[in-house]
């Protein structure tokens, strides 16, 4: 709906800028749809399970509605030009996540996660509002990039001092709450990477030693490359120690993508892939925990053939298969068979079983839309930091969705990770709201400057474009 406004770039001299449509009304309408869809899902679960609308349906809908509405008002107030799709997608994914967790709670009466998740969602939206209200300009973050990286490293190291849970040492427990600091660290690290690469872009891209006397093979000087590689190695190393393979993969991917975008050197991708392959082989061979995951991925039904019954991955595949094209319907699947991580790592299996390929594809496309909107903001921005930040945040979502969804559907080896917004997990929900808040901020910047052309590289729509848009 904003296609004409953002993709068409005027080649000629700038015309007087017409104000870009802000589309806050569309955002509000989409939010209402997202809340209604979630409430519908909640009712569908109740009707399927007990034949009645669940007693909390109204309260739940009101809660989610109020959260979404307050967030919308904050956007209206402080980011009036922001992309109108970002917030509704966040609300819808969070709402579907709450429905799925509520549905899985019905199978495990001793362990109710939905109320906690609602509290964390509230905190997440609160953080969203704080970011949107207080952070007037994303470029401010550039100043705090070293604070960010120190904070990220501290957060990453903290779990080492806490006992491991289910084989991974990624949680800290404080007063009954368990927090996964690695989740927050990824946003901080994205900010740092973006700031550092933006500041050292030209040095990275155009200076350095030639390797083998060939221009194309040019390594940046150690002084420029050193710090960032050190930090990256540090975070990945810590994560490997903590056995958080998914997050280390995510950081790795994020680093390679940002380095490529910042320097424009294809070589980084080759180096990245090479390192990733070496690292994967080394970790896969040496680490028994990871080695088991790789074995499971290659032979998902080995445990069945060995007479030990299906493992979680095969249960997950069974769940997807049971869903088929249209799914069994909310509340009518047998996700309980998946076992202990059904509400977190494997929540997508429930989506696949009960919503079918149709529902699963819709979810993937929602994530895809979120990522695309992030990239779009990055393309429209003019400052390197903002562009890299938008690309980094969008890539975090894309990589995370790919790693976890690919893992539970048997495309790649399984790594314990949270599906953004869907999975049970407070740290994850809060972090994802922070990501959406930052994307709102950069998209507001990107779209508002479309209306104010600067210099010769104006991206403002020409009168013809305006005309075309209204004609549609």
């Amino acid at each position, binding site marked *: 709906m904003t296609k004409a406004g953002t993709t068409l770039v005027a080649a000629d001299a700038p015309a007087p800028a017409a104000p870009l449509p802000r589309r806050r009304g569309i955002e509000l309408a989409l939010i209402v749809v997202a809340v209604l869809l979630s409430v519908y899902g909640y009712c569908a679960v109740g009707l399927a399970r007990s034949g009645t609308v669940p007693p909390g349906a109204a309260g739940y809908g009101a809660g989610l509605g109020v959260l979404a509405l307050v967030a919308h008002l904050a956007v209206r107030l402080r980011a009036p030009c922001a992309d109108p799709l970002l917030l509704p997608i966040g609300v819808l994914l969070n709402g579907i996540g709450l429905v799925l967790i509520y549905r899985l709670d019905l199978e495990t009466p001793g362990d109710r996660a939905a109320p906690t998740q609602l509290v964390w969602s509230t905190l997440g939206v609160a953080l969203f509002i704080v970011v949107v209200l207080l952070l007037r300009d994303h470029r401010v973050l550039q100043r705090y990039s070293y604070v960010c990286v120190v904070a990220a490293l501290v957060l990453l190291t903290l779990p080492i001092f806490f006992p491991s849970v289910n084989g991974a040492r990624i949680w800290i427990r404080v007063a009954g709450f368990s927090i996964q600091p690695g989740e927050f660290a990824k946003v901080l690290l994205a900010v740092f990477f973006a700031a550092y690469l933006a500041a050292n872009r030209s040095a990275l891209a155009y200076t350095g030693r030639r390797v083998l006397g060939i221009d194309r093979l040019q390594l940046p000087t150690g002084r420029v490359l050193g710090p960032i590689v050190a930090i990256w190695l540090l975070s990945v190393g810590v994560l490997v120690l903590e056995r958080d393979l998914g997050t280390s993969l995510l950081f790795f991917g994020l680093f390679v993508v940002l380095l490529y975008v910042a320097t424009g050197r294809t070589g980084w991708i080759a180096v990245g892939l090479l390192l990733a392959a070496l690292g994967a082989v080394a970790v896969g061979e040496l680490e028994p925990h990871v080695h088991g995951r790789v074995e499971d991925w290659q032979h998902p039904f080995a445990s069945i053939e060995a007479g030990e019954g299906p493992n979680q991955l095969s249960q997950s595949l069974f769940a997807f298969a049971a869903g088929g094209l249209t799914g069994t319907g909310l509340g009518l699947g047998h996700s309980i068979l998946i076992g202990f991580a059904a509400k977190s790592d494997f929540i997508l299996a429930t989506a696949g079983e009960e919503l079918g390929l149709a529902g699963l594809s819709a979810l993937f496309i929602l994530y895809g839309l979120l990522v695309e909107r992030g990239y779009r903001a990055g393309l429209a921005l003019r400052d390197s930091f903002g562009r890299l930040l938008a690309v980094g945040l969008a890539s975090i979502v894309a990589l995370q*969705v790919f790693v976890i969804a690919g893992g539970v559907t048997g495309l790649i080896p399984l790594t314990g990770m949270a599906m953004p917004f869907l999975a049970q997990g407070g740290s994850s929900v809060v972090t994802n709201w922070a990501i959406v808040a930052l994307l709102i901020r950069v998209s507001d910047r990107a779209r508002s400057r479309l209306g104010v052309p600067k210099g010769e590289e104006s991206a403002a729509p020409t009168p013809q474009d305006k005309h075309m848009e209204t004609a549609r």
Partner: protein
Amino acid sequence: MTRHIRHAAFFCALLLVALLVNATRIQLFEAPSYDDNIANRRTTIARYGQPRGDILVDGEPVTGSHDTGEHLRYERTYTNGPMYAPVTGFASQEYGTTLLEHAEDGVLAGTDPLLSPFALWNGVARDRYPGGDVVTTLRRAAQEAAYEGLAGRKGAVAAIEPSTGRVLALVSAPSYDPSALSGNGASVTRSWSSLNRDADKPILNRAVRKTYPPGSTFKVVTAAAALDAGVVEDLDDKTDSPDPYTLPGTRTSLTNESEGCENAPLRKAFEWSCNTVFARLGVQVGVDRMAATAGAFGFNDADLRIPFSVAESTFDTKVDKAQLALSSIGQYNTRATPLQMAMVAAAVANGGQVRSPYLVERTTREGGATVATAGSRPSRQAMRPSTARLMKEMMVDVVREGTGTNAWIPGATVGGKTGTAQHGLGNSGTPYAWFVSWAKGDRDLEPKVAVAVVVEDAAADRGEISGGGDAAPIARAVMEAVLKSPARKGG
């Protein structure tokens, strides 16, 4: 930079496409094989998610479903479980299904595509249908008579309608309650192991799955073969047989339980069950023609299904003359299920024609609409009709004045043959008491029932075991029940 952002965006789009393609692969193309994986409990859960259809006897269900509200939701219940167990089998969530519960599982569980009025659409939607019903050919009165007759003893009863092959009664004792195996709790596991430890093998269906030496009841087959082969032409001609009879090629001599068997005519020899006469007749008929007649009665057929499989009854075709002599009086390697011996009696009653026995009259959808009927069953000529007429005479004589008087029913024509089968090493085991018979009410046009009873009563004193004493009264009770209770139209 813009170009590289676009590249990165393209990379993310590729990841999305990979996810979509893989999800399609799993959910559409791999799904059938995942659904069929034995470790996938969803099939089991879906299977028990709806009540199972019922098995009907005389129009009344002998099974039921109990909603437990648990994960595997509906459990099987049985009315008169032990009495009908040799027919129904069990449907256990833990141990699977047997007998009719197994053979008709598709209909009962609702998975049979025939149950759907729109088979094609349901194939696409992968829906389940409500479980259908299985209407049996059993007659409740006959089943009750047989079950009560065997009470407290080990043995089996099989009764069939000679003109059609309908199985009217099928009882095995001691029995068990299949309800004890429904569900999947600890009590089910306990019942299973105690039933399997039980030396009396209560789960064994003796009527169709156990073969016994048929003893003298096999003389019906031998006599029919001798008459068909022309070895004997007149029932009242003296047979040139010694008493005792020395088995050909050996110095073993065969004796009789009764007196006057030397040179006894076939009619008398049948009435008094003379071993010597029949052993020699078998040798005279020869192994080929004996085997052909036995085969025509249903022996050496491993493929019989009613619809669950019936153990193969055997007549050894690779024997020397001495072995043939013993085989012809139902010893040596000759073995038969009670159902097989009921088929022998039914063949005589039905003019020499053997009808394939069957237990399922028809299967219906939930509402009663017919899905499949038994249809026409193949029949075989076991002996010439003239031979059958002579056999009937001789069997009637057995009941009127021979060893089978205990089976006599006033107001009916009853034919029978007793048997006392030796078994075990050197015949050390307690002999099995046999009785095979058929009956025709005086107002009936044709015999209405043929029955075989075997009693393996280990507790009884060996001398008292005899087909006439132990088995014939049970057979009479079953025949009376069939003759007195009119058949319900359509089962």
